[in-house]
């Protein structure tokens, strides 16, 4: 992977970089590609020195909402060539399976992070104008008056470098150091589930390559097929189930998924690596901009992994930011105008989803309105289509509710009368 050591922090009185990105995972690299292709100079700082590093605790599921952004980056074809599968979604509820008509259902994309992360990182590193600094972590933020103006980075030998940029971008995940240093406002929302998962080889789940989700209310389980005929099995029970998962994660995962209704073939499968878990998944919603600074991906909104939105939203928020700030970085408007445009876009697209996700992350059971909509979706194709469009984040809650609720009332009334 190309990288460079030729850093020139300041060129005259102008910052060396248009953007300094902290974090070379999906969001950071996607932004770097977008800005680099527009002719801008971008530094990407990543504390992991290994170009093949990848996020381990991830379901790898990319909702359909994220696919167009991936396609525009030119990554969809390479992903498919690397074995990515294109799943639709099937959701088990106590009222039955929710399955949008196949010809109408949209498809996500699934590729293990082990393959995806290095691929995206390589694409960023190969983009003209992008300098990849692996093995460097962000230590301090630089300020220029009231604006953030880059970062001071340090490598493992203790060497420090100052990277000045017109825009500093935090793409460093849920526990973002950039967010912490910039002290942007953050709201946290409790999470009362645990997440355990791992890759298995064995018989393929039915409907392969489609993803299967069980809404066990309040628990959740999933089988996500991926490349190499592997399946990622995951369980997200409430924290009452923690002792058995802590005692033996793999046995507990196999037992849990083996006992769901219409279980996937996990009992006939073999884990190819240790099943791992995450216990603290407090939701964090940060203000995604500050003067001279923007947050993307999990750094801006680290939300419940239950709904598999993290990877898709990483690509999407990266694209929204790149599109929003390009005019400013190209000198056509003030930077704060571009940042404000990004803030509004981020808020409009994700705030409603986040509200519902955070509310359900408490580990509560479904509300009466949710029961109404889910039951209707299990009984009616059009309702299933709406649910699927919402679940894959194609439409926002305010777009879904006015259509889904009246229909759900009618569907359930018909169902009750027919009994």
């Amino acid at each position, binding site marked *: 992977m190309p990288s460079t050591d030729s850093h020139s922090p300041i060129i005259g009185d102008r910052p060396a970089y248009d953007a300094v990105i902290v974090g070379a995972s999906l969001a950071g690299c996607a932004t770097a590609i977008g800005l680099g292709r527009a002719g801008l100079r971008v530094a990407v700082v990543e504390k992991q020195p290994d170009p093949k590093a990848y996020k381990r605790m991830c379901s790898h599921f990319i909702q359909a909402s994220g696919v167009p952004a991936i396609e525009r980056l030119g990554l969809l074809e390479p992903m498919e060539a690397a074995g990515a599968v294109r799943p639709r979604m099937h959701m088990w509820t106590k009222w039955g399976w929710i399955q949008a008509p196949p010809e109408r259902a949209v498809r996500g994309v699934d590729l293990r992070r082990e393959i995806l992360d290095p691929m995206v990182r390589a694409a960023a590193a190969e983009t003209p104008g992008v300098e990849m600094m692996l093995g460097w972590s962000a230590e301090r933020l630089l300020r220029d008056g009231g604006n953030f103006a880059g970062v001071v980075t340090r490598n493992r030998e203790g060497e420090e470098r100052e990277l000045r940029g017109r825009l500093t971008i935090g793409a460093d995940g849920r526990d973002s150091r950039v967010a912490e240093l910039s002290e942007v406002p953050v709201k946290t929302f409790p999470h009362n589930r645990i997440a355990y998962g791992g890759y298995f080889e064995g018989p393929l789940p039915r409907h392969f390559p489609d993803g299967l989700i*069980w809404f066990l209310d309040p628990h959740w389980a999933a089988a996500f097929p991926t490349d190499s005929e592997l399946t990622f099995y995951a369980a997200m029970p409430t924290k009452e189930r923690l002792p058995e998962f802590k005692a033996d994660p793999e046995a507990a995962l196999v037992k849990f998924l083996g006992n*769901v*209704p219409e279980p996937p073939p996990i009992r006939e499968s073999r884990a190819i690596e240790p099943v791992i878990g995450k216990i603290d998944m407090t939701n964090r919603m940060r203000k995604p901009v500050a003067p001279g600074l923007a947050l993307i991906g999990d750094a801006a909104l680290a939300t419940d992994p239950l709904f598999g939105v993290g990877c898709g939203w990483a690509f999407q928020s990266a694209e929204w930011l790149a599109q929003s700030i390009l005019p400013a970085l190209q000198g056509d408007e003030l930077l704060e105008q571009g940042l404000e445009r990004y803030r509004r876009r981020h808020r409009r697209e994700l705030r409603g989803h986040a509200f519902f996700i955070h509310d359900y992350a408490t580990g509560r059971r479904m509300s009466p309105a949710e029961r109404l909509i889910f039951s209707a979706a299990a009984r009616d194709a059009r309702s299933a289509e709406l649910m699927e469009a919402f679940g894959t984040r194609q439409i926002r809650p305010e777009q879904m509710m006015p259509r889904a609720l009246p229909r759900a009332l009618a569907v359930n009334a018909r169902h009750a009368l027919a009994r």
Partner: protein
Amino acid sequence: MSGVERKSLLAGGTRTRLVHAGPTEASEAVVFVHGNPGSADDWVGLAGAAAKAGKRAVAFDLPDFGETIAPAGFEHDVPGYAGFVNAARTELGIERVHLVLHDFGGPIGLVWAAMHPDAVASVTLINTGLLPGYRWHILARIWRAPVLGELFQATATRRSFRFLLNRKEPRGLPREFVEAMYDHYDRRTRRAVLALYRATDDPGGMSEALVQLFAERQVPALVIWGEHDAYLPWSFAERQRDAFPAAEVHVLPASGHWPFADAPETVERLLTEFLAGSGGEASF
């Protein structure tokens, strides 16, 4: 269910309905004990599954449940029912027992097991078991209250029965299962329920002594518990390990109080796998 026969059996002065499957003469058998309200019918599917796994399987109505009438003077309490279980298995010539218990069948079967430990090959607990510290659920408290209990039973209609049974069941119970249960919930059964609950002041009372007894004997055990049980909380599932340290515990995430009705395939699989692995090799 193919391979399952229905017969009648005279045991301890009670003529009961018998569900039978598998090798008729085997001295080792799976003995199913139902709960309240329940009957031998609860076990038809599982008896067939056990028979397919090569086991003899028997299930019977407890006196005054199902279609079985208790003889005069029958004691509607746990020791009385445990005595009936023993009479039935003796009559059937069963020497080694794989107990499968549900609901109130738990205390009944476990008391029988404590009285005949050498005859126990294994124990399967389905939403039941030893319940230290358990406080009766609301329906039981109503049944135990004089007058209120009678009033409640007298006014239980098919519709209200159906509603109550399904009220907190996560998936709803099969219609025919609930209807058959109500068909058996006649005046005799209603009176028996009141008597049984009123005779059982402390459902967790004997737990300590039984825990010690079973733990010492290392009885093979399978615990299956529907997580959404509105009557007996699933938190008791893991606690069965106090008595059965090697127990295999399965908490079914989408089941309620009757897992064999709302997740029959899963319960059948778990039971047959367990029986295959505990083929009468208990260390007694």
